[in-house]
C-alpha cells in the first residue's frame, strides 16, 4: 500500500523524504551502537526501536536505565517526552483514520517528522495521506535497520554529535514547519509558544516545555469572533 503511494508523490518531495531517511538512519545506527556500548543486548535495543519507535524517548529511557536510574524514572522520562504526540495525533490523526489496520499502524508510526510532513502537505487530503504513509513507513524501516546494524557494528559508527546531526534534525523540522507559518497569528502563536518553551526548558523535565508552548495558541482566540477566515 505505501509503496504504491510513492508513485503519486513528486520527485522533490521524495528527495526530501530520502534526505530525512538518511539522517534518521544514522541516528538509528548511533542508537544501536550506544545501546551495545552500554551493555544492552542487541535484541533489546531492536525491540525498543520496533515497539517504541520514538527516538528521543528511547535515548532518554535507555540512558537513565543503564546509568542505574531505575525503572520508574526511566519510563517516566520517556513517556513525558512522548506526550507531544497527543497534539500531533489531534492535528494529523484524520490522515490515517481510515481502516482499522491503518488506524493501528498509522498510530504507531506517528512521529515528529511524519506529523511535520503531513502538515506541510497542506489542505490536500490525498497528498497528506500519501506523504504521511511514505514518510512513516520509510522512517520505520531505516530506524529499525539502523538500530540492528548499529548494535552489531557499533565501533564503526561515528558519534552523531561529531557529524553535527543534532543540528540537522531540528533543521529538518524547521524546514517542514516554515511553510505553515504563513499568517501573522500562526507566527505570533509560534513565537509566544517557543519563548515559553525555551524559558521553561531550563528548569522543567524534557518533554514538558514543548507542551507548554501550546499557551501560544491564546493569540488565536480572536478567531472565535468571526475573523477565522484570515488564515485561508
Amino acid at each position: 500500500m505505501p509503496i504504491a503511494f510513492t508513485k503519486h508523490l513528486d520527485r522533490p518531495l521524495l528527495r526530501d523524504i530520502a534526505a530525512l531517511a538518511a539522517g534518521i538512519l544514522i541516528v538509528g545506527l548511533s542508537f544501536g551502537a550506544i545501546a551495545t556500548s552500554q551493555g544492552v543486548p542487541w535484541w533489546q535495543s531492536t525491540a525498543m526501536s520496533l515497539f517504541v519507535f520514538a527516538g528521543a524517548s528511547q535515548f532518554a529511557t535507555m540512558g537513565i536505565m543503564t546509568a542505574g536510574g531505575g525503572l520508574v524514572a526511566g519510563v517516566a522520562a520517556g513517556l513525558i517526552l512522548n506526550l507531544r504526540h497527543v497534539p500531533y495525533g489531534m492535528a494529523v490523526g484524520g490522515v490515517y483514520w481510515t481502516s482499522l489496520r491503518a488506524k493501528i499502524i498509522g498510530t504507531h508510526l506517528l512521529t515528529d517528522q511524519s506529523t511535520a510532513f503531513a502538515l506541510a502537505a497542506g489542505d490536500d487530503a490525498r497528498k497528506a495521506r500519501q506523504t504521511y504513509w511514505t514518510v512513516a513507513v520509510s522512517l520505520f524501516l531505516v530506524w529499525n535497520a539502523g538500530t540492528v546494524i548499529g548494535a552489531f557494528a557499533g565501533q564503526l559508527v561515528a558519534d552523531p554529535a561529531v557529524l553535527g546531526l543534532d543540528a540537522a534534525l531540528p533543521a529538518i523540522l524547521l524546514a517542514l514547519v516554515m511553510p505553515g507559518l504563513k499568517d501573522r497569528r500562526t507566527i505570533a502563536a509560534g513565537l509566544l509558544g517557543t519563548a515559553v518553551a525555551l524559558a521553561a526548558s531550563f528548569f522543567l523535565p524534557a518533554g514538558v516545555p514543548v507542551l507548554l508552548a501550546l499557551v501560544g495558541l491564546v493569540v488565536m482566540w480572536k478567531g472565535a469572533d468571526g475573523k477565522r477566515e484570515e488564515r485561508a
Partner: protein
Amino acid sequence: MTMFIAIMVLAAGTFLIRLSGPLLRERISLSPYAETLLKTGATVVLLALVATSAFVVDGAWAGWALPAGVLVGGVLAWRRAPLALVVVAAAATTALLRLAGVA
C-alpha cells in the same frame, strides 16, 4: 530483565499516548476553526521542539555550534533549498564549528 520491562511499558504507554490524539479529536466537533487550531497547535509544538533542541541540552545552554547549524539550515529552508541541502549544511556548520573548538 528490568530493561525489557521498561521497554515494554514505554512501548505500551507511548502507543496509548499516540492513540489519545485521534480519539480526543473524534470527541470534539471539528469546525474549520477547530481544525485550524489543532494544526496550529501541532505547528507550535514542532517549532518549540526545534528551538528547545537547538538552544538547550540537558537543561543548560547548548553552546553556539548547535544553534548556528540549525540557523544555517533554517535560512536555507527559508530560501526554499531542498531538504538534503538543509541537512548537509546544518550538520556541516555544527560539525565544523565543533572541529574548530566552538562548543
